[in-house]
Structures are given as structure tokens and as C-alpha cells.
């Protein structure tokens, strides 16, 4: 997750660094839209036309024109390969986006997800023909509940935010079952939370009440106690929190919530820091989503597909949505229709099977030993970056160990004329993806760095030296390196104000666009 704080720029004011006839700069290619190069009478797929037959379209044949050009296969390959070359990626470089966990994506997992026995099975083919699929769901569930020490899991949610929705709907159903739907309407959310937390609570009719943070970035049980009351349904707390710190009073907070009759939702976005080190269930959590695309390294894919299974405590297990797999005397049953207290169905089919295969492949590869080592190396790397930068950058909460990500503020940039955004954009010229910026909101000019366990010591050292060089440069007042950055990327800063003021969300033929003006 990342805040989008792009400043407006002025179109056409910067000087191009080099002029070529094509606009290309060696390997950096300009690429037209398919609508500008494709032709309406071209197709890259050979299809045998059907023999004459009588259609049964009920008089609803398409009359509206469909102006979508086609491309031959070589044109298609070149177009999308060129587009791919305009992207930064984990495979190409260190991607220190705090809270996003950009770790290595093992290719074995891709291969496993493409086994026809997983990739080419239908969600509604007879259950008797997919015992291997049910076994995979059960096995993944076993790993997730064992790692978290929780009673049950729902594999249904399609992403982290969908998992939050699932967990909060289970809580809402549990409260309704107690007859308190009308009275318990408030959800406590710390200011440092991901935006999805308050958005999720509000989406299903809860009122959001903010919990302030202590000076060290953690939540004070006393603040929770002060806000707790018979109107509170739940707290949504991220642990480790978005400042990269383990909430050391989490057990006390859970007790306050439970004693007051509420539920404890834990945002598991940062679960990757603590796998094998502690179990969520032992901390008093009632529900937690697990982003398989973070902790278990299913590829982010440029923004999805994700997968967000939710582990549930004994108290919430009965409210889980359908479908789910249940052990029976004869093996595994697939329960597809709500029974008892289940809150029902939140999407079609069984969840993100393709992601489940990848995540289980990751788990089997690591094992209990490798999973713990992954958490330890992630925390080790973040702390290494912290101690190697804390003499030049400032930390909002003093010099204390962090978990898997390290947070700096912009105090050290004061008076330099360089902002967090400028500093991050200068990292692009150095071949790095920027860190997460301006998140969490509770820290001024936040820079959240998550190196992950995938980075070697040599890679970390070069990254650290680069950031130190940039930091000294900013402090020396070399603002030109920052305020116009990036200078060397595919594009200079984009005019985001113009994009939002006059939204152009699809291509239109030039003559149509002109006529519209």
C-alpha cells in the first residue's frame, strides 16, 4: 500500500535529455496504443468459420459497432514485450515498498499453478472428480491455522481488503446473533491503520472511531479502555503495526476488548514478520486476514490478483462464509450452501485457487524451518538498513528495533528544499523503486522501507550507500538532483492534476475526440 502524493507538474516545461527521430532512447522504446496500430480486418487467431446454421439469438444480434482492432501474433508479442520493458519489477531490482512485501516470487510456484490438474478444472464439475482440489484446500487451511493457532479459516476472500470484509462481516453476524446489532455499531481503528480498515468498517455500516497512538507509535491499552463501551463492536488493529513495530501490549488490548464484549480484528498485512515467532491466536485475536501475495509470495502482478484468507477464532468460526471444506467420516466434504450461523456467500465459487497452489508450494518449499528463517531474515534486513541509515535520516520513534520494515520521517530534510516525494523520485534515477511514502499518515513525510528477506547483503549494502549518497546530496543543497527527478526514467513526472480534472479514461479516435472538443 502506498499513498499517492504526486505533485502537479507543468506540461512541457522540462527539456528533453536527447532527441531522436523515433522518440526512442536505445532500449527505451516509445509504443503506440493498439488502437493506433491495429486494423479492424486483422486477427492474430486463426478460426475455422462454422458451417451455415440457424442462429437462436432471439433478435438480439449485435448492431452496435465494435471498433476494436486486432493485431497479428508478432505485432502482439512486440507490443506487450515493449510495454513490459517500461515497468520496474522485483526480478529487476530492489523494491523496498513498506507494507507491500515485495519479495522474490519463486517460479516453481508458477509451474505448479499451471499443472492441468489445478489450472484446468471447473469450479462446478462434480465434487467426486476433484478430490485433489479439496485436499489442497484442506492442506492450505491446515498450514494457515497451524501458523496462526486459530480455530478455522475461510479461503473465500479474493484479496486483503476482501478478507477484512469477510472478517468484519463474521463479527457483524456474531453481534447480530447476540441480539446486539442495534447497539454495537462502533469500530475502533488507530490513526496509523491502512485506509482499507476504516473503509471496510464503513462499507458495512459501522461507525469508525479513531484510536490515538502513543509517542512510540504503538497503541496504549489505556486509550482503548477509554474508548471501549457497550457500543463498540470491534477493534481493527494491525500487528506488527504500520510503523513496523510489534504492538507489545496486544494481549492487554485484546483483554479489554473481550471484557467489553467486542471482537479483535487483526490486519495481517504484516504477518510476514512473525511467522514461526508467535501465533496470532495466542495473542487474543478473533479474526485476521492473510495476504497470500505478501507473506506467501504469490506474485503482485501489477496490482492483483491477490488472495486474502481469513483465520477465525473459536468464537467466530461458525459465522464463516460458504463455501468451505469440512472433514467427514469418508474424507472431505465441500459445503456450498449456508447452514447454521454462516453469514452466507460473498462471491462466486471457491476463492483464488491459482493463488492457493502458489502459496502452498511456497509453504512446502520453506517448511516450518524456512518460514521462521524468512521472518528472521526480513527483520534482520530491516534492522540492518535502520542502523546503517539512522545517522543521516531521522526516525520518528527514536532508535529502537523495528520488525520487517523501518520507518523514517522527513525531519532530516527540513530546510533542504527537498521533500520525501523528491527524495523518492531521485531513487528512481539510481535504479531503485521508491519506498512507501506518506504512509502511515501519523508520521510527517513518512518513508517506510521494507527490504524483505530476499535481498543479499551485497544488495543491501549498495542500497544503503545509495541512500546515504542521496541524503548527503540533499543536505548539501543539490536540489536539482531531486526536485525534477526522475531524469532518466521512461517518463518524467506525470501531470496528475490534469488527469483528474479532465479524466480521459479510454482511447477515442482522433476525429471523434476533435469533434467532442
Amino acid at each position, binding site marked *: 500500500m502506498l499513498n499517492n502524493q504526486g505533485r502537479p507538474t507543468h506540461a512541457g516545461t522540462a527539456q528533453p535529455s536527447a532527441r531522436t527521430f523515433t522518440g526512442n532512447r536505445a532500449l527505451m522504446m516509445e509504443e503506440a496504443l493498439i488502437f493506433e496500430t491495429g486494423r479492424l480486418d486483422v486477427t492474430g487467431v486463426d478460426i475455422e468459420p462454422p458451417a451455415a446454421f440457424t442462429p437462436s439469438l432471439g433478435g438480439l444480434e449485435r448492431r452496435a459497432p465494435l471498433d476494436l482492432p486486432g493485431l497479428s501474433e508478432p505485432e502482439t508479442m512486440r507490443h506487450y514485450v515493449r510495454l513490459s520493458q517500461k515497468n520496474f519489477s522485483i*526480478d529487476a531490482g530492489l523494491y523496498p515498498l513498506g507494507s507491500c512485501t515485495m519479495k522474490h516470487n519463486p517460479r516453481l510456484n508458477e509451474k505448479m499453478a499451471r499443472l492441468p*490438474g489445478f489450472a484446468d478444472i471447473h469450479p462446478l464439475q462434480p465434487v467426486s472428480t476433484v478430490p485433489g482440489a479439496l485436499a489442497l484446500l484442506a492442506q492450505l487451511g491446515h498450514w494457515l491455522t497451524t501458523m496462526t493457532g486459530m480455530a478455522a479459516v475461510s479461503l473465500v476472500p479474493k484479496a486483503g481488503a476482501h478478507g477484512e470484509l469477510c472478517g468484519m462481516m463474521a463479527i457483524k453476524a456474531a453481534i447480530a446473533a447476540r441480539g446486539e446489532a442495534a447497539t454495537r455499531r462502533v469500530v475502533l481503528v488507530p490513526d496509523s491503520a491502512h485506509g482499507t480498515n476504516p473503509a471496510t468498517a464503513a462499507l458495512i455500516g459501522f461507525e469508525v472511531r479513531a484510536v490515538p497512538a502513543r509517542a512510540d507509535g504503538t497503541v496504549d491499552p489505556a486509550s482503548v479502555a477509554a474508548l471501549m463501551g457497550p457500543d463498540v463492536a470491534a477493534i481493527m488493529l494491525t500487528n506488527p503495526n504500520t510503523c513496523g513495530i510489534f504492538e507489545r501490549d496486544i494481549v492487554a488490548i485484546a483483554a479489554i476488548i473481550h471484557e467489553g464484549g467486542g471482537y479483535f480484528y487483526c490486519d495481517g498485512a504484516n504477518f510476514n514478520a512473525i511467522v514461526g515467532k508467535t501465533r496470532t491466536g495466542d495473542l487474543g485475536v478473533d479474526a485476521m486476514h492473510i495476504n497470500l501475495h505478501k507473506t506467501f509470495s504469490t506474485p503482485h502482478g501489477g496490482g492483483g490478483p491477490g488472495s486474502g484468507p481469513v483465520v477465525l477464532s473459536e468464537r467466530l468460526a461458525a459465522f464463516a462464509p460458504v463455501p468451505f471444506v469440512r472433514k467427514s467420516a469418508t474424507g472431505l466434504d465441500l459445503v456450498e450452501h449456508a447452514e447454521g450461523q454462516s453469514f452466507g456467500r460473498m462471491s462466486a465459487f471457491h476463492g483464488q485457487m491459482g493463488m492457493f497452489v502458489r502459496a502452498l508450494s511456497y509453504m512446502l518449499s520453506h517448511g516450518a524451518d524456512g518460514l521462521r528463517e524468512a521472518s528472521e531474515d526480513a527483520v534482520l534486513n530491516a534492522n540492518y538498513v535502520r542502523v546503517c541509515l539512522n545517522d543521516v535520516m531521522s526516525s520518528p520513534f527514536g532508535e529502537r528495533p523495528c520488525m520487517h520494515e523501518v520507518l523514517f520521517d522527513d525531519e532530516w530534510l527540513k530546510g533542504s528544499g527537498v521533500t520525501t516525494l523528491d527524495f523518492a523520485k531521485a531513487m528512481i534515477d539510481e535504479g531503485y523503486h521508491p519506498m512507501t511514502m506518506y504512509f502511515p499518515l501519523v508520521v510527517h513525510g513518512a518513508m517506510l522501507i521494507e527490504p524483505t528477506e530476499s535481498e543479499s547483503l551485497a544488495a543491501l549494502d549498495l542500497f544503503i550507500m545509495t541512500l546515504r549518497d542521496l541524503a548527503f546530496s540533499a543536505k548539501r543543497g543539490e536540489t536539482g538532483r531531486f526536485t525534477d527527478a526522475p531524469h532518466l526514467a521512461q517518463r518524467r513526472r506525470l501531470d496528475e492534476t490534469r*488527469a483528474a480534472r479532465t479524466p480521459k479514461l479510454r482511447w477515442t479516435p482522433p476525429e471523434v475526440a476533435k469533434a467532442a472538443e
Partner: protein
Amino acid sequence: MRYHPHTKSEREAMLARIGVASIDALFADIPADKRLEGLLDLPHGLSEMAVERQLGALAARNVVAGSVPFFCGAGAYRHYVPASVDHLIQRSEFLTSYTPYQPEIAQGTLQYLFEFQTQVAALTGMEVANASMYDGSTAAAEAVLMAHRLTRRSKAVLSGGLHPHYAEAIRTLTAMAGEEASLMPADLRAEEDILAEIDNDTSCVVVQSPDVFGNLRDLRPIAARAHEKGALLIAVFTEVMALGLIEPPGAMGADIVVGEGQSLGNGLNFGGPYVGLMATRQNFIRQMPGRLCGETVDAEGRRGFVLTLSTREQHIRRDKATSNICTNSGLCALAFTIHMSLLGAKGLRQLALVNHARASALAEQLRKVAGVEVINKSFFNEFAVRLKGSASEIVETLAESRVLAGVPYARLAPQAGLDDILLVAVTETTTDADAEALIAALQGALPC
């Protein structure tokens, strides 16, 4: 562990630099009595070869759709995906990149999202589309909430031709949000009087075409009545390929169009990941959920793309956001866009025609089988048949002889009283031999 670069001595050197004696010192904030001392009760890590052996054994226990005569649809369709599609989506730069929040180094993702939005808008006949949703069912649920925001009303009417999973996803979300969605009875022949259900409190009416039984619906009278009452028409589809051949919902007055895009570029994958499509009118975009990619220029005046109108979204608006949605279905949207770019309008139309022709041929053959009644007057590549007997039992019987005959409607809605209804889907991947195998198997299983 093959994915972890550090050696033992490197770890020790790093701990020394940090100034702690052991790695556990960095986990000191975890309450002492809650720390795990030993390993989790799970197996040790495995080599690539060993993992492949284990997962391969699980995969081998499933009956692969492509290995048998196969007629399942009902919201997920088996189409042929060109080899170049799967190759391209595995490019590192697409596969292992994050959401394009840094547009200077993410123009690849942003440009294909712009192409995707353009293609979806054209297919649905709408003005704009977003950068994708999780799947068709969640897109439908979000569309209903969007209609409630737009109309400031909170009563949706759901057609009885709507896929039961979609109806349930909508009803779960609206009920949790304290809103209403009334579902009409299962509508086998598209005969329901939905116009009578639309009144001055109705926020939106949700109609699927082709519907879950395969019937094609003329949306124009429904749109007219909805608009007359100040309500919106949400049109739903589960088979995007149909839009190559049938009139798009946008041309029939729909205000919001949502559907499943899996058929283009994406395999069955036991139900996910898929790609939800959502399109609407230009003046509704500020109430639209999900990501939007827009065109702009960079500081040198060159065309570029950015994520835009993010003031609708959770990371800016928090509890005032249009939705809690954060991720979209990026890589599945890319597969969709590449497949659509290969096809073009010409290829899509031809492919859709092949689907319709093959389905028509099978329907014709089934009409001649004793104990089978084809229900539909109109359909695209899927239709409903009434069997003499329980469809679930007959499907099980046929599965034993390795013919996957389709989806019994009762699997989706056991309470609907339509136990004898089977949904049969046919695509370009269905061969004449498959059709013959189905006919023969049905003749063997049905009482004469």
C-alpha cells in the same frame, strides 16, 4: 533455504552491526510467554523436486476438463487461450511489479490498463470502464452499492435469471450494509414480469443476459421502465464472449454493466483468479469503485498514463471511500487484454459465432434424445435442458464414465425446485466427438 541469500557468517556480521547478540533480541517486543520457542508443528522445507512430486500427486487426483467430454459453464467457461498470452503475462516486469503508483516506472502496466478500459467500454457499449474488479460476482455486488449512492435509494430488484452465486453475493453485502435486495423466483424461460417490480423506491434493477439459463434478454423495456421510475439498470453477464455477437447492454440503455471476463485469456482454475469487468456512464465515474487509469502528459509533454480520481479510494478517503477495494485483478486483466488484442473485433465475432454454432448443433441433437427437453428459445453458448430425473444424479452417473455433462441448476440453488434442470455449455473447445459422447451417455443413463 534456496530463497534466502544470507550465509551464517553474514547473519552474524549483520547482527554485530545492529548491536544485538542474537536474532531473538529483535523480537523482544513479543510478550515473553507468547514467543514460540521451537518450530511450528509443520514439516521441514522441501526441494523443488520434492514439492513438485507432492503437488503433482494432488493434481493427478482431479479429472482435467481438457481430458474428457466437457460441458460445464454457469459462470466459468473453458476456452482456448493462445500460447502467447500465457507467455507474455509471465514476463517478470508484468508478473513481479506492484500496483503502478510510481507512474514514471510503471507505464507498461498503466498503458495496458488504459487499453483494457477501452476494450471493456467498447465491448459493453458503455462510455467508461474501470481497471477491473475481483470477479463478476463481487463486481455485481459493488454495482448495487454504487447504484444506491447514485440514486440515494436502497432497494434493489434482482432478476430471477441472475446467477444464484451473484444474487447471494449481492444480498450478503447489501444486508450487511443495511440495504435491501429482493430476489425474484428462478426464471427458467425469461418470462418474469420484472417491470411490475420497479417502483418509485427502486434504486436499481439487476438483470443478466445471457441469463443463468442461457436466455438472451431484451433490456430496452426494462431500462425504459427503470428510468421512468428514477431507477438504474445494472446489466450482468457471465460470458463476455457473447458480446462479440449480441447487442451490448450499453446500446440497450444499461447504466452500469458488470460481468465476468474470465473467458478471454484466463483458464478455469477451479474458480479463481478471474477478472471482474465494470463499465458505466461518464457522469457516474466519481461513484465508481476500483482503480481508474487516465491519460495525461509528463514534464516533457509526452503522453503518459496515471492512476487517477483516487479521491474515491480508500487510501485517500478512508471511511468515506466509494469502496474498500484496494487491489484489482491486474494480471488477469492483462491476459484479457492480450487475448482481445490478438482477436480484434473480427476474431472475437468469428469465435463467438463458432461458440453459438456448436451450441446450436448440440441443442439440435439433444432435442432428439428421449427424456431431454431443451428449454431455451434463445441462447448464446449455454442453454438449459430438463432431464427425466434428477440432474445431479445423472451428472454423477455420467461422471463415472468420464463425461462431465454440465452443471445441475440445483448445485447453485438447491431450494429452487428445479432439480431436473441441467445447464449445458459448449465452446470452441467442444468437439463433435465430445457431443456424440454426451448424447450416447445420456441415452444410456436416461429412462426411455
